[in-house]
C-alpha cells in the first residue's frame, strides 16, 4: 500500500466519512514542541503501487495535533492547533480563503477534536487547559465549556448513538462521561493509575468504551459496571497514545503507542493481541479505521510517514 511522507512529524490521521479513499493528516514540526503545523488532505491512489495524491494542504503557525472531518459536509474539517485554536477548513474553497474560521478560546494546546456523529451539527474539543468545549459551525464562540478535569484533557469523543453523550480522557487519570444536558459530568471512572491519553466508544455497544494510558495498557470498560474493566489489553511496551474501535466489528480495536507499534486487538478473546505492526520508526501517535472500507487502517507517527493498509497485510508491502 502507498506511503506518504509528510514534511513535519505526524500527529493524527482520519479517514473521511464521505469518500473511501480520502484522509486528513495532522502534522507538527519538531515533534510538536515548537514550530509550524500542517494539515494534509490525501487521496489513496486507484492502484496501490502509485503514490498518494495530495489534494490540499493547509499550513498553521503552530503544530496541528488533531483533525476531524465534518459529519455533515464532505469538504469541511476542523483542526486542533497547539496554539489553542480550532481552525475550520473548507476544501471546496481556494487555499487563500482558508481557514474559514479560527475559534480561539482554549488557553492551551488543543489535543483532540471530534465531530458529533449523531447530530452532525456540533463538535467538541479537548485541551491542555483542562477543559472540553462544545462548538457549532455557526457560532463564533463555544456553546459550553466543561471544566472538571484537573489536568490536560487528551481526548473527548462523542458516543456513537447518543447525541448528547461524550467521554473524555485526561491526565488526571480519570475517564469522565458527560451528558451535554447535565451541568456536570455524569460519571467519573478512575480508569488507570496513570495518565489516560485516549478513549473511544464501541460502535456496537453504546456502554462499552476503551481507554489507553501511559501505563502501557488499553482497558475496555462497560460503564454500567465501571469498577472493573471488561478487559485489560497488555502488549504495548510504552505509553499507548491512541485507541480506536472498529466500525465493522464489535470486538476489534486498534491502538498505537510510544513503543512505535500499531496493535490490533480482539478484546473478547483470550490472546487479545491479534496483530502488531512495527512499520513506524518513531513514536506511532495517530491511527484510524475506515468507516467505509472494512479493515482499512491508517497510521502516522513522528517518522513523518503515513501508512494505509488492509488489516492482515503488511503496511510496508508495495
Amino acid at each position: 500500500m502507498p506511503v506518504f511522507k509528510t514534511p513535519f512529524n505526524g500527529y493524527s490521521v482520519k479517514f473521511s466519512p464521505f469518500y473511501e479513499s480520502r484522509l486528513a493528516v495532522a502534522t507538527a514540526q519538531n515533534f510538536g514542541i515548537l514550530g509550524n503545523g500542517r494539515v494534509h488532505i490525501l487521496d489513496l491512489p486507484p492502484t496501490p503501487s502509485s503514490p498518494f495524491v495530495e489534494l490540499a494542504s493547509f499550513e498553521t503557525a503552530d503544530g496541528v495535533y488533531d483533525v476531524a472531518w465534518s459529519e455533515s459536509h464532505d469538504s469541511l474539517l476542523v483542526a486542533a492547533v497547539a496554539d489553542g485554536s480550532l481552525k475550520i477548513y473548507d476544501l471546496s474553497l481556494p487555499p487563500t480563503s482558508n481557514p474559514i474560521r479560527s475559534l480561539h478560546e482554549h488557553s492551551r494546546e488543543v489535543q483532540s477534536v471530534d465531530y458529533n456523529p449523531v447530530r452532525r451539527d456540533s463538535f467538541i474539543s479537548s485541551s491542555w487547559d483542562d477543559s472540553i468545549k462544545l462548538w457549532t459551525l455557526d457560532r463564533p464562540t463555544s456553546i459550553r465549556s466543561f471544566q472538571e478535569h484537573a489536568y490536560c484533557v487528551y481526548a473527548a469523543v462523542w458516543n456513537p448513538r447518543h447525541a448528547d453523550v461524550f467521554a473524555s480522557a485526561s491526565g488526571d487519570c480519570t475517564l469522565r462521561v458527560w451528558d451535554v444536558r447535565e451541568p456536570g459530568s455524569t460519571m467519573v471512572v478512575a480508569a488507570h493509575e496513570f495518565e489516560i491519553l485516549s478513549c473511544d466508544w464501541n460502535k456496537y455497544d453504546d456502554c462499552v468504551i476503551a481507554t489507553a494510558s501511559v501505563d502501557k495498557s488499553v482497558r475496555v470498560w462497560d460503564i454500567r459496571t465501571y469498577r472493573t474493566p471488561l478487559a485489560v489489553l497488555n502488549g504495548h511496551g510504552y505509553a499507548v497514545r491512541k485507541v480506536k474501535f472498529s466500525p465493522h466489528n464489535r470486538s476489534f480495536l486498534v491502538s498505537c503507542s510510544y513503543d512505535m507499534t500499531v496493535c490490533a486487538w480482539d478484546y473478547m478473546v483470550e490472546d487479545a493481541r491479534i496483530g502488531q505492526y512495527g512499520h513506524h520508526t518513531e513514536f506511532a501517535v495517530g491511527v484510524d479505521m475506515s468507516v467505509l472500507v472494512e479493515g482499512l487502517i491508517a497510521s502516522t507517527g513522528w517518522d513523518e510517514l503515513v501508512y494505509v493498509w488492509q488489516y492482515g497485510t503488511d503496511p510496508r508491502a508495495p
Partner: protein
Amino acid sequence: MDMRDLVTGGAACAVPGSSSSSSNPLAALANTLIGSSSKIQENKEIPTSITPGSERQIYTQTNDHLGALDQPFVDPNAPQHSDFLRGFHGSGGGGQTELDAAWNDIHPPPPPPQLDHIYDTHPQQPILDGPPQRMLSSLLHSFVDSSRGGVPFRATPLPVLGLSEGDKQCIRDRSSIMARHIFADKSEDFINAQVNALLCSLDIDGDARAKGPLPGRFRELEDYWNESQGTLKPGFHAADGWVAEFNQQRMVHGANGWASEFEQQHGANGWASEFEQSQLTSVDQMRGSNISSLAAMEQTRMLANTLAQNDDPKFQNSKFLQFVSKMSRGELIIDDNQVKQTALPAAGDWASEYQHQYNRSPAWADEFLSHGPDQWVNEFTTEREQHGPVDDQWVSEFSKLHVHDWADEFGRQVGEGALGENSTDNWANAYDEFLNEQVAARQRSDTSRGVYVFSDMNPYVGHPNPLKEGQELFRKGLLSEAVLALEAEVLKNPDNAEGWRLLGIAHAENDDDQQAIAAMLRAQEADSTNLEVLLALGVSHTNELEQAAALKYLYGWLRHHPKYGSLASPELSDSLYYADVARLFNEAAQMSPDDADVHIVLGVLYNLTREYDKAIESFQTALKLKPHDYSLWNKLGATQANSVHSADAIFAYQQALDLKPNYVRAWANMGISYANQGMYEDSIRYYVRALAMNPKADNAWQYLRISLSCASRDDMLEACDSRNLDVLQKEFPL
C-alpha cells in the same frame, strides 16, 4: 412514559426542529415543560442545516455514504442499544431540563449564506520561518546525525537561537507534558529533573514553569468558588441564556452546592488532598526550578541510561529519544557554530567528553564523576577569566561565585520561612549540604589533584615490613587496611615504585580514584617504565576520557614492553594519533594473540573511541586467557554498561565479586548497573554494601543519594546525607 422520559429519549435520538427558536431562557423553559412532548415526534432523519452556502452539492453527492454510515452508528432501535445512557439524564433534579432546552436550542437558526465571511476577521497568523526557527530546527535534528560518528557535541548558549518568550513557554510546557508520557515509569523527581535540565540547557527560566505542567489544581478550586458565588464566567456564550440558567440552577442548589458537588467527585477529603497535592506540586516545581544543573544533569544521565536500556534497536535509533536525552543533557550543537568552537577550544572538547562520560560511562569512567561538575565550573570560570568580561549569562550562571550567592540566597529564604513547612526545610537543608559537598569536592580537586593525601592516624607507621604486610592485606581483600600499610611503606621508602603502584591499585579497587591516580603518578616518577603502572595510568586517563594522556601512557606501555618495543618507533611519540596507536596494538595482538595484556590495552583503547562492541570483544578474548582476573571482569562489566548492556554487565560484575568479594568498585558498579535499568531499590542495596566496605567512596554516596531519590525513598535521604551507614544497612540489607 412520563414527560421527562419522553424528553430525554427524544433528545437522545433526534435533533429538534427549529420551531422553538428561542434564546430566551423562559421560553426555553416553557418549551421544555409544555412543548417537549411534541419534540420527540419530530424527524428522526437528521436535518443538517449547516450548509455554508446552499449552492454546494454536498448532500446529493454524499447521501449514499451517509446511508452507509448510519448503518452501524445511528440506529436507535437496534437491540443492543441500551437504556443506560439515556438513564443518565433524568436522574437529577428538576431544573436540569433547562439545560436540555438550551442544548436543544443551539441548533437553529440556519446560518446565513454569507457565513463564510462573517468570522473571517482573523488574519492569517504569520508562519514562523525566521532564522531562529531554522536554527532551532537544525539544532534539534543535527545532533542525531553527529552522535553516531562520535563527533563532539558543543553546549550552545541559546541566546544564539533568539527564542521568544512564547517559544520558550511552548518548549517548557510541551516538553514537560510529553516527558510525563514517555518517562512514565520514572518518579516525579526524575521527570522534573529531566525537564529542568532541558530547560537549563535551553536557557529557559524554570520559574515560569509554575504555569506549566500542572496548571489546573488551584484553578479548579477557584472555579468552584466562582460558581458558588454565582459569578458569571466570561467565555460562555450568553446568547442562549444557557449560562444564566446554569447559574440560576446553581443558586437554587444553594451556596453549598459547589462544595457538595466537589465532595461527590473527590470524596470527603478531596479538597484537602487536592490542596495537599498542589502544595506538593509547588514544592516539586520549586525544586525543579532551583536545583542546580549539577544535580539535574547527574539525574538525567541515569535517565538517558534507562532510556537507552531498551534493547529494541528501533528505540536506539529513535531521533526523538535521542533528541530528548541530548537536549536534557545540554548536548546541543549547531553545525555551523564556528564562533563557539574557536572561542572554546579546550572547553568545548572537554564539555562534550564530559557530557559523554556523564551520560554513558558511570561505571567505566566513574573516576572523576563527583568532581566532574566542578571541573566544568572551573573550566568555564577560567574561560571567562581568559576572555575577559564575557557578558554571557550562561557562563556566569555556572561560575563559582554565582553558585555561592545563590546558595546563600536560598538559605536566607529558607531562614525567613518563605518556603513554609518543615518538609521544605529538610529538603533545603539537604540541598544546602549537597551544595557544600560539591563546593568542598571542587576545592579538594583544585588543591589536591595529583597530590597524594596520607591518612592521619596510621598504625602501620613503624611496622618492620609494611610492604609485605600491605601485599598480604591486599591479597586478603582488606583494602582499607592495605592502603594504610602501603602508605606506611611509601612514607618509609618514597621511591618504591611497587609500593606506590599497589597503593594506587588498592585505591582504585576501593573506588577512590583521586588517590589512585596520585599514587600511580608517584609510582611512575619512581619507575617510568613499569608496565603495570603505565597501563593503570592509561586506564585512569581513559576513564577521564583524556585521550591524549591515555594514548601517551598506553603507547609508553608498548614502547617499554620487551616484546613489542620494536613496533613503536620513537618519532611517533611526539605526535600520537589514536589510529596509529590502535594499529600498533592490533599488530601486537597479531604478533602474540595469547598475550592477554595486549587485548586488555586494546579494550581500553576502544573505550577511548567508544567502540564498545570491539572493546567487549577484546576484553572477552583477554578473559579467555585470564579468566581469574577480577579487575578484567570489572572492565568488561563497565564496558558493557557503557554500551547499554547493563544486564550483561551485572553478570560480569558478579564474576568479579565471586573472585574478589571485597572489590568495592565492583559492588558500586553493580549498583550503577541496576540503577541504569531502573531497579533503584536493588541499586541502593549494592551502594550501601560498597559504602559499608569503604565509607570514603564519595562517588558511591552520590549515586546512593540519586537512587534514593529515584526510588522515592526520601525518608532515607537524611541518613544518606549524614552518612549514617547503620541506618542504611538496616534498611537495605543485601
